[in-house]
């Protein structure tokens, strides 16, 4: 910082307050625990002593917390603390990955669990770091905002006694009167939008112009830091008040925004599920397009979900939801997440009645949409006339292929050669056991696998759309009528998004001002020398060492030339021009 260049003899005022940075306290003034005073006898003395000690410690702690050094340490810790979360699976990203990891590394996991390493970003230690950082930030920025307001109200600080100690300096002799030079300097500085002020020096008969410019830099810096606080608050609001749910919808089916309809749902502690927006939509059709040649064979190029939605006021509209184009209804957004196929099957039971009919979503396993799924038939009556249950499980392959390694699978995600491959079970599906069951899994513990009557092998069959098969032992028929597509949607709402965006944009604007603008002071002093000439001295001081500052000073000096033409010979004793500084002119680097 420029301050270091200014030796102790220089007037502090000239250089102070140029930055809103906290002034580092000399180490010696912060002596832990000794805040002066002695303890008087008696309870009262004890209390005052205790009070003084507490206040002293609190002050000390606050000063430490809001010091730049601690802010640097906290920032460093924050960066460090963010790392483990990128390497260890996190619950917020995927609980299944975390479960997987725990099963594979039980010992390590209990250790990780204790350190909250599966929830780094909501852990106590991570939160502590950023909360301390933000306390530090507020404690640092607020007082400085006031200080800055004070500076805006006040006048540019007076010149230091020795201008030649400033980072950029120039001097020359002229015949013009000091007052005229100063007048011209004042005008020039004003024209360049400096705040300029004509002031008397301590030395009688001497005066100077003090000027300052680039206050916007400070404004930018304050705006930036305060926006960070806004961002943090917006982020916290988003954690506390949000709702996010997923739903799989088959073509032609509806979704009504209602807790019972969700496949999965989570919400923040402040979110009341009564706040769910009142709307519903129908997935009319789902379109997917896949690349059919070249190196990207089989990758998706387009997903469109055509939906019709109805809002609370009774309006009904049709629209298309795409991956990057969610549908906004009120505060809620409906996003397209995934898609797959749902074979439509009809099962007639032993008595010839329809026991099951409809689409069954199968879950994709790979890029080519080889999908697995189960069909659970609960209202089934066997050939013996007794109620029973059936279950089927298997694959749906949009473009069917079979080989020895992979068995039946799909080679392309479009339904070029759709085949449904199933095996069947009969018995208790276990739905009444009271345990929650996954709709995509079959619990066959109380079921008997169907067996081919003739060969005695497992009863496994392939069907194309429109085909049907007789189940063994007159157990009925299964017809593969065709298939629909399905799409999964995420319906979410979150508080504070607008604030987060506003905060982020303000932060960027503030940063740009703070890093690209220069705050600098210029002083011009003119006084009459013993030989009758006028000595003009100019100096400038910037917040950062910028090459533009000497250039600016040079151009100011040039602008003063017409009023204060330079005298040819430079007298020897111009203040501060000893040899080492003359060579320093070379240092006026670009």
């Amino acid at each position, binding site marked *: *910082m420029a301050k*270091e*260049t200014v030796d102790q003899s220089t007037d502090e005022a000239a250089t102070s307050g140029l930055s809103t*940075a906290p002034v*580092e306290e000399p180490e010696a003034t912060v002596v832990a625990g000794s805040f002066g005073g002695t303890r008087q006898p008696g309870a009262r003395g004890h209390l005052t002593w205790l009070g003084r000690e507490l206040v002293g410690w609190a002050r000390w702690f606050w000063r430490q917390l809001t010091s*730049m050094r601690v802010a*640097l340490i906290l*920032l460093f810790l924050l*960066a460090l603390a*963010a790392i483990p*979360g*990128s390497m260890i*699976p*996190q619950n*917020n990203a995927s609980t299944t*990955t975390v479960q997987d990891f725990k099963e594979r590394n039980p010992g390590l996991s209990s250790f990780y669990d204790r350190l909250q390493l599966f929830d780094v*970003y909501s852990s106590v230690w991570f939160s502590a770091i950023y909360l301390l950082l933000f306390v530090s930030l507020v404690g640092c920025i607020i007082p400085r905002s006031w200080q800055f307001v004070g500076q805006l109200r006040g006048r540019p600080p007076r010149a230091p006694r020795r201008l030649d100690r400033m*980072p*950029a*300096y*120039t001097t020359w002799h002229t015949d013009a009167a000091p007052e005229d030079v100063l007048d011209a300097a004042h005008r020039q500085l004003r024209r360049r939008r400096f705040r300029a002020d004509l002031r008397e020096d301590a030395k009688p008969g001497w005066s100077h112009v003090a000027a300052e410019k680039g206050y916007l830099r400070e404004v930018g810096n304050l705006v930036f830091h305060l926006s960070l606080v806004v961002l943090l608050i917006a*982020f916290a609001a988003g954690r506390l008040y949000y709702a*996010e749910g997923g739903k799989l919808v088959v073509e032609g089916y509806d979704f009504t925004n209602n807790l019972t309809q969700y496949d999965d749902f989570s919400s923040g502690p402040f979110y009341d599920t009564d706040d769910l927006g009142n709307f519903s939509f129908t997935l009319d059709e789902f379109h997917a397009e896949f690349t*059919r040649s*070249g*190196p*990207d064979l089989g990758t*998706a190029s387009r997903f469109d979900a055509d939906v019709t939605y109805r809002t609370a006021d009774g309006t009904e509209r049709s629209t298309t939801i795409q*991956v*990057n*184009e*969610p549908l906004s209804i009120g505060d809620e*957004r409906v*996003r397209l997440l995934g898609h797959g196929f749902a074979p439509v099957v009809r099962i007639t039971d032993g008595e010839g009645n329809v026991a099951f009919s409809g689409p069954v979503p199968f879950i994709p396993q790979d890029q080519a949409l080889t999908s697995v799924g189960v069909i659970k038939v609960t209202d089934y009556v066997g050939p013996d006339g007794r109620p029973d249950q059936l279950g089927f499980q298997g694959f749906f392959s949009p473009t069917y292929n079979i080989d020895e390694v992979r068995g039946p699978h799909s080679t392309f995600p479009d339904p070029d050669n759709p085949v449904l491959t199933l095996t069947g079970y009969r018995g208790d599906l276990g739905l009444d056991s009271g345990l929650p069951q996954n709709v995509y899994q079959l619990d066959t513990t109380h079921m008997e696998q169907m067996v081919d009557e003739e060969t005695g092998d497992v009863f496994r069959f392939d069907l194309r759309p429109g085909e049907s098969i007789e189940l063994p032992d007159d157990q009925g028929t299964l017809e593969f009528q065709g298939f629909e597509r399905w799409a999964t949607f995420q319906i*979410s709402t*979150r508080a504070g*998004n607008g604030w987060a965006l506003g905060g982020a944009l303000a*932060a*960027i604007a503030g940063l740009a001002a703070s*890093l*690209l603008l220069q705050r600098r002071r210029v002083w011009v002093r003119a006084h009459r020398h013993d030989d009758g000439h006028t000595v003009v001295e*100019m100096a400038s001081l910037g917040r950062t*060492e910028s*090459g533009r500052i*000497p250039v600016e*000073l*040079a151009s100011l*000096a040039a602008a003063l030339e017409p009023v204060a033409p*330079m005298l040819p010979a*430079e007298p020897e004793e111009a203040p501060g021009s000893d040899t080492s*500084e*003359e*060579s*320093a*002119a*070379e*240092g*006026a*680097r*670009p």
Partner: protein
Amino acid sequence: MTLAADEGLADFSNLLIYTAMAVYALTFVAYTAEWIFGSRSRVARTAAALSGEEAAAEPAAVPAQRPAVMVRKGGTTSVLERPRIVTRSSSPERDAVPDGPGAAGDDERGDTFGRIAVSLTTLAFLLHLGGVVARTIAVGRGPWGNMYEFSTAFSMVAVASYLGFLAFRRNIRWLGLPLVTTVLLDLGLAVTVLYNDSTQLVPALDSIWMWIHVPLAIICGALMYVGAVAAVLFLFRDRYEAKLVAGGQPGRFATSVLERLPSSITLDRFSYRINAAVFPFWTFTIVAGAIWAETAWGRYWDWDPKETWAFITWIVYAIYLHARSTAGWKGRRAAYLCIAGLVCFLINYYGVNIFFDSLHGYGGV
């Protein structure tokens, strides 16, 4: 759909990239020749400046008959008939240290090779640019859909910024050799390990933000890279000057090379200015990514590894700027921080795509 014509164009793009690599290799030879020939010139100005013999060593610094503003630009000092500005920096004892003359020193053959190298760099850059443009047309989207394309675009921007500085008459030819060396490395890695002919963009990436977020990340990264190279050179040069200040005698090779670099103050400032200018853009890159994540995934921030490392990179650069501007941490410690920032950027770009389980797993290694 990939048409045959597009495939032809993609092959053409690869051809251009290979040709560019060949020209970069020649460039490397030319820069090396510049350094070698330059070593014949004797320019021990630093030691002289630091020991106070500068008046003899630097005749230019003797005051002109009339005081004048001396403004150094592009290695030349323009002397105006005006008052002379004396500048001081925060490390006054180094103020007098002049910038080195550049790799060529005062050797004419060296300078010729330097000029040839710059011309070759320009040629290689044009080929490189052509390769990226051809690729863009061939794939019908931005040229940053996978790591191969990202890497080629990254080094292209780094070279472009180098040539840009030269075009604005900044004397940074000293950056040429380290830059071209790493560009060759980067391209070598790109065409072998990272090569991918994928043309497709998965629907999640098909967004206007793809055109804002990703190219900005590439530009910021390339500039941070240039800043970090300057910081590394600063570290060498600073050690060299410190040794001279302490009265030591650096080795001949170190003297010969480091003497021709700009002074530590200039290198430090160069690096700082780039990083300070990039930081707002890097911030915007992250914000743009967050906006995109909001539309694509329904949350603007969820500590995905890619997001986390972008955050870490951002914090490291914030520490760097804080340290530099407030605690007076200029010099070596700031240089380490700025290098650490670049390392974080690279971890985010290579490391996360390859080793981490991230939603941003489109890397297509």
